[in-house]
Structure formats: C-alpha cells, structure tokens
C-alpha cells in the first residue's frame, strides 16, 4: 500500500529529522511551528544543502527548534546563541548560520550580544520570535511586554517600556532589518529568504503570540484571535501612511556594509602576501 506522502514527500519531510521522536514541545496553536515551516520553505527556495546550514538557538520555547530539523544544530545557553554562532561562523565561513531566539533570550539576557552582533556585522541571520513574554517559564514580563500589560511578574501591570526590536537592531548597525508576523506566513517566507541571502548581520523580528500565557493573562482570546490581531494591527511598510499607527511589516533596513568575516579573510590574505613578499626578497 502506498500513500501520497510516499510518492510525494512534502518539503517539511525533506528537512525534519525522521529519527527524532515527535511530538514537539510547543503548545497547540503556537506560532513556532508556522515559523519553522517558513524557515524551511525559505531554505528550500534558496536550495542550500543541509550540510551547509547551522541552526543555533538559545533557551526558551524557541530554543527547542533546532532539535527538529536535519541541519547542524546547536542549542546553546540562555541569551548566548549569537556569541556561539559568532565563533562557529568565524571557524567555518562556508556555513550558513541561522540563529533563532525569543524576545527574552535575544533582548534581555542576550541584549548585549545582540547589539554587538549588529554592530560587528558578521554574516548571520538572527530570527527573533517576539511573543511579548517568557512563555516557557510561565508568562513573566519580557523586554517587549507593552507597558501596563499583565504578566506573572507584573500582576499590577508592567511598569516598564518595551523595546522596539527592529529599531534597536537598526541603530545598533544591522545592515538588514525586517519585520513579519506569524499570520502573514507566506510574506514571512520571502522576508526570511531575503535575510538569509543578505551578506551581513540580518535581523528578522517575527511578531508571534503566546495565547497560553500572555494572551490568557491579558484576555486577548484564542490563538486565532491573536493571529487576527497581527492581521489588523500591522501594515506593509510601503502602504503605511502618515497618522497610521499600525506596526510596519516588510524590509525596514537594507544597506551594504563591510562584513566582518570577509574583512578578516582579506586581512589574512594581505598578511600572507606580505610574508611571502618579504620571504622572496631575502
């Protein structure tokens, strides 16, 4: 007996780990699965060999993503994914290194690494899943929890101001910054693909939802309701008009800057030439 899947395996089956025990750890309705699908479609579109891809993560719900995909996968310590990825990329520049992080992971405990990675401009793709909370530990407020919203550590309302992830990345020097949402999954495929192909440090902020923690505490409804919020409260950057307070989506920054690893390889080549020159002159 054959099934359609035997004759026509999906793109997902080409990239997921067949010998890994599923199910995954994510709650039903979570945006992480949709984002993983989008990452896979973006990679498949580019046509990278699985051997040449490294997926690096930190700690949290997003941190579990690498375990499911058939790449070189590295699940690091909390907040440090970009620093691990920096060493990996410098050691093997041929690898396409993707780094997936949550908002707490990338911007609180890993905030220093994030701004310095943006400033340094190493060819990494930083994917930040922003669900406004620490989901895995039970819904504490994060650096992107809006002011006055409720969290398990802000039961009277959050007194702090949130980061704007994309603006932070831009002022820190990232040459490519984009924002997408889980709702706009096909648009996200394209944004991720552009980011992956960009030479330099590229950042994609993905607005996601944690209906189980953040959504429930703030009475934002089901996963579907929160996806509709993403639809209704964001607008493509090119369609955004004066006075429109919706959150812009799309490519927000795209400029060319010298990439660190390439500059370092040039330095090595220059020093080698100088050494060869002086050796030949003797």
């Amino acid at each position: 007996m054959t099934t359609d899947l035997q004759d026509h395996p999906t793109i997902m089956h080409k990239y997921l780990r067949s010998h890994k025990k599923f199910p995954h750890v994510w709650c039903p309705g979570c945006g992480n699965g949709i984002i993983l699908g989008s990452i896979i479609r973006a990679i498949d579109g580019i046509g990278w060999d699985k051997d040449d891809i490294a997926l690096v993560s930190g700690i949290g719900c997003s941190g579990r993503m690498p375990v499911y995909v058939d790449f070189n996968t590295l699940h690091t310590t909390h907040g440090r994914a970009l620093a691990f990825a920096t060493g990996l990329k410098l050691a093997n520049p041929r690898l396409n290194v993707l780094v997936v992080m949550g908002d707490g992971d990338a911007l609180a405990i890993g905030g220093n690494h994030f701004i310095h990675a943006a400033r340094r401009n190493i060819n990494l793709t930083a994917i930040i899943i922003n669900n406004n909370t620490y989901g895995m530990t039970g819904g504490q407020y994060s650096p992107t929890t809006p002011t006055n919203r409720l969290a398990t550590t802000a039961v009277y309302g959050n007194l702090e101001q949130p980061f704007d992830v994309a603006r932070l990345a831009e002022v820190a020097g990232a040459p490519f910054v984009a924002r997408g949402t889980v709702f706009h999954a096909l648009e996200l495929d394209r944004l991720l693909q552009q980011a992956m192909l960009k030479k330099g440090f590229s950042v994609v902020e993905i607005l996601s939802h944690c209906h189980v923690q953040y959504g429930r505490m703030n009475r934002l409804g089901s996963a579907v309701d929160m996806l509709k919020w993403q639809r209704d409260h964001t607008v493509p950057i090119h369609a955004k008009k004066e006075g429109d307070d919706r959150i812009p989506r799309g490519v927000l920054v795209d400029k060319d800057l010298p990439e660190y690893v390439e500059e370092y390889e040039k330095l090595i080549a220059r020093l080698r030439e100088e050494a060869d020159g002086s050796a030949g002159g003797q």
Partner: protein
Amino acid sequence: MNSSLPDSVRLLQGNEACVEGALAAGLRFYAGYPITPSTEIAEQLSARLPRVGGKFIQMEDEIASLAAVIGASLGGLKAMTATSGPGFSLMQENLGYACAAEIPCVVVDVQRAGPSTGQPTSPSQGDVMQARWGTHGDHPIIALCPSSVEETYHLTIRAFNLSERYRTPVVLLMDEVVGHMREKVVLSPDVEVLERPRPVVPPEWYFPFEDPDTDVPPLVSFGSGYRYHVTGLYHDRAGFPTLRPDEINPWFERVFRKIEESMDDIVQTTEEWMEDAEVAVISYGISARSARAAVRRARAAGQRVGFVKLNTIWPFDAQTVARVAEQVKLLVVPELNRGQLILEVERAARGQAPVRGVNRVDGEMILPDQILAALEG
C-alpha cells in the same frame, strides 16, 4: 635577541609563553575580553593569529568569549580564551556547557587577588575551587597549574592535547606573577600535538555521544556532512534531549570514567627529596617556587623535608598524597589563598599525618621563611 643563541631560546613573559605554547599546539581561534593580568595574551594573539590563518576576536564580555570559543571548536578549530578571576566567574555557565557537550577548548585564568575586583595586579591562587566547582552540577574537569614561564609554555601545549584527547574543556590556572615575570624558555622545534578523535564511520552510523570502542566518542566538525545536535540539556547518544534515567546515567558514568580511568595520563606530579622525608611540602603554581626554595634550605640545614609539586590540580592526585601521608609526620601546604587545595590534601591524607596550611591573601607572595617557620612550628 642575542645572536649567539638559537631562535628557540627566548626570554619571555609567562603570558607570552602561553601564546607560544598555544600556537605550537595548533590554536587557530581566540575570543576574549580585556582583563588584567591576562591581557598580553589577547594582544599578542590579535597580531599572531591572522598571520597563521587563524582568527582572533574581541568579544563584548567574557560570557560571549567562551561562547564563541565553543562555537569555533564545533566549527573545527582549536580554540582558547584567557581571562582573570572576575571574567572566569562570568564564564562558569558556558564552562559547564563545554563539559556537558564535551567540547574541547582551553580556558586560561591568570589569577589575581580577589574576591570581586580585588587586586588586579597582584597574584593569587584563589580560583582553585572555582576551577573545580564554579559551574553548577556534577562534572569532571581538568586544571593545570604552571609555576614558571617555561612550564607555562609546556602546560599550555599539554592543556590543548588533553582537551582534544579527552573532548573536554581544560583550565590553565596561571597567576599574576607567572603571567608577568620574564624567564628563559626553550621553545621546542617538534612538539607533540594531539588532535581530537574523528569518526571512522559514515554519518548514519555516527553517534556524537556514544562509541562502542571508547569513552571519548569522536567529534566531527559542523559542516562536514555529519548533521547532529548539540545541547546543554541531558541528552541521548545522538545528542537529543532526554529525560530517561537509562540514558542519563550511562552518560554521567562515561564522562567521569573517561577522566578517572586516565589519571596516569592526565596527572603530573613531581617529587624531590622524598626518599627519607619526615615532612612533605605539597604545593603548586607560583607558591611551589617558594616551597621548593624552603625545602632546599631545610635540607641544607639537615632537616628531612621533601617536596611534592602538583602540575595537575584537577583531577586531584589523591593517590600520591595518600602514599606520602603514610610516610611522613607532617604535610605542609603553601598556597596563595585561605586554604583551598589543602581541603583535598586533608581528604586524601585520611588522618595519616597532620596537615598544616601556609597561606597569604594580601597580594604578596608567600616567602620561603614563612614556609620554614611552618616546618618548625
């Protein structure tokens, strides 16, 4: 340089000897953050590494430095960082990660007086226990401790070799005096350099955390066709997270066994004047210099005093200490702290001989006179 001497004979600072040893051992990646009294290591490697095709990067802090080192090691390069006490404290979580994921790397800690900011330009041996237990959870660790510039050169090479052979982080515990003093070093033209075990099986047969033939499973670099998972979580033989005791316990047993069953290879202890000794002075690192001078003077004065020097402090050479404790009437342990390694000496001695510490934490060295007084007392 004196032209009558061969190029291999050099007058070097300890930190410079560390650089020479690291490069001789095959170092090709360094990530670090400036901190006294280790900074010369970073400065020199920033100039030297690109000349040999290696990479240097100054990271935003010590946490990121060790993270980048681990990433680079997985990428296939021999990798190292260097720091001092405060930075070593920041590295502890990732040091545990390297233990758990069995990633070869070398962490140099040029110890300075502490706790906290302490005395950045003064020596200390205050990080002995931090090197052993600074990271959380049970784990094996290797830590080496040089007492001279020449030893720094050789023990740095050894640190890389042990790290690669046993797939584990190795801590090189220097101190401010060893790091900054200048002494003669003979650089070896042909150094024994070990490489990490590589798989001899195709990818579908490969398990990065279990091998039927050895307790040190081969480690293959990311990007070479063997796609696998690395995590700091408890993991199964393939690297995937597990909650199963029947997978967790064998892992723990193996990572301890790979060190404990190779004590003969890992532990380096030297003994002098021990044949007829009635008192033994046991020391390591910079304090061993004062200790040896004191023992020599005691011998010249006709006292039956012997000297035991520990080049490997972790794992601790309990076997030698136990044997010595049975022979002598007194064990004296000079160290630049309030008494750290003495706890291991007491444990190994099992009450066979009294153990007396000679300690100092004010940023000054222990002098031979202080040790001689302890022999009398």
